[in-house]
């Protein structure tokens, strides 16, 4: 299967797919982590925030 | 420090805003400029700050110094010079860095102290867009405390401020006067600190 001269394009395509999907996952989780941190900081100041989430 | 203006007249858009105006302020004195809207209060302040060209007359500062008059002045107009998506601290830190002079090199501590003085340290790290009108006004005035400049030109500094906040501003102005500074303030309200008075409006329509 890897004998095909154009096999490089298949690998490239799957690598790009992996990169895009990984970027989406990482971005979503990082965004969540950042928001939780800011929520905790704000909760400390206004006494709400996180506990509102566990309501 | 003494500032003297003589035979001042400023023209904007072909219209004489005021003509043949004069005043003299010694160190530790304040001048209250009042008059109907459009009488040229803001224009006078901007002219003193060097933001507007003088049609006639001159403004002299003694002791003479090679620094431009504008660099000795603080000008606080109606706009608060705050960028909405920057935090109150970032805004003030930038303005302090911008307005630094050879005489006064404020550091980060001076910026924090200024915010503390104006009661803004609790909201220092919030974007300016989230601040109330009163807080924005105080943030705008905070640069007076952060950077030390002798001549203060204040255009309606007390608007949009509640009683406690006005008290803080008056307190700061009083402190500046006792420290030998000079203030020219355009306002309708009378001020507890002793001020000479300069009425605009009648002179403009001679």
């Amino acid at each position, binding site marked *: *299967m*890897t004998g*095909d*001269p*154009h*096999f490089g*394009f*298949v690998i490239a*395509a*799957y690598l*790009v*797919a992996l990169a*895009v*999907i990984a*970027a*989406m*996952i990482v*971005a*979503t*989780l990082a*965004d*969540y982590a950042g*928001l*939780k941190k*800011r*929520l905790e900081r*704000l*909760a400390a*100041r*206004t006494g*709400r*925030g996180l506990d*509102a*989430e566990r*309501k | 420090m003494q500032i003297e203006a003589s035979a001042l007249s400023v023209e904007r858009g072909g219209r004489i805003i005021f003509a043949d105006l004069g005043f003299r302020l010694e160190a530790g004195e304040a001048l209250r400029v009042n008059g109907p809207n459009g009488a040229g209060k803001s224009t006078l302040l901007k002219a003193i700050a060097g933001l507007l060209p003088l049609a006639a007359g001159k403004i002299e500062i003694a002791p003479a110094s090679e620094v431009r008059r504008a660099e000795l002045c603080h000008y606080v107009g109606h706009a608060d010079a705050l960028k*909405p*998506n920057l935090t109150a601290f970032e805004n003030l830190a930038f303005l302090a860095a911008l307005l630094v002079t050879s005489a006064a090199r404020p550091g980060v501590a001076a910026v924090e102290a200024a915010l*503390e003085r104006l*009661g*803004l340290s*609790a*909201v220092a790290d*919030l*974007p300016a*867009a*989230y*601040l*109330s009108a*009163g*807080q924005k006004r105080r943030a705008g005035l905070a640069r007076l405390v952060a950077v030390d400049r002798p001549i203060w030109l204040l255009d309606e500094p007390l608007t949009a401020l*509640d009683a*406690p*906040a006005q*008290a*803080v501003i*008056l*307190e700061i102005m*009083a*402190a500046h006067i*006792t420290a030998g500074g000079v203030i020219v303030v355009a306002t309708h309200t009378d001020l507890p600190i002793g001020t000479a008075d300069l009425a605009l409006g009648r002179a403009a329509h001679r």
Partner: protein
Amino acid sequence: MRTMPNYANPADFLRLVRVAVPGTTAITAILFGIGLYLALLDSPPDYQQGETVRIMYLHVPSAWMAMFIYVVMSSAAFGTLVWRHPLADAVQKSAAPLGTSFTFLCLVTGSLWGKPEWGTWWVWDARLTSVFVLFLIYLGIVALWQVIEDPGKAARLVAIFTLVGAVNIPIIKFSVDWWNTLHQSASVFRMGGPTIAMSMLLPLIFMTFSFTFLFVTLHLLAIRNEILRRRVRRLSMLAASAGEAEVPVIFAEPAE
């Protein structure tokens, strides 16, 4: 007795996310496992294109996702305009970047798939060009979200643009096809012909479902992010107004 979970209420929705996401993640993983196995190992090369046909198993599903996500976004936009519900705003806003990413993936895999055959990285083929225009619309939507400060207003304005875009997509599709045939370009790009052999259809189906479940998982997480982002904004304003109350009444002390 717990009332029926009303998923329109953000707090209930957050609990839904905590429950549903592990499940959909597992399903996505399994589907990808099978799909990739079929796509890469268990399906024959194309008699003409050879191995490069395997790129189709990425290109076609991502094209399908680009359209599917736009439909999701448009229905959320409709929800925003009709019911003005913050959850619809969150669904709509969180779908935009995901849609943009899948459309970008579709364009890149399309270019990689076409290169061996045409010798250039890009050909203005009708289908590829339509996806490209959809990509421009997605970029416009993401940009519009970033420029308007107030979340409520932003949601309504973007909703209007999204629905206007939705109406225009078929028109664009038709005119691009006509444009393409008008300037009959030399090479005709065949995207896996009408009758795909079963051995190729199976991996295509599995990959499409795995992409879809991947989107569902990420979308649930992203909606939660938007809910928390709006809560952070509200609490920041609360902190600002709380700060208002604490004007230090210090004029009693002598000036320092």
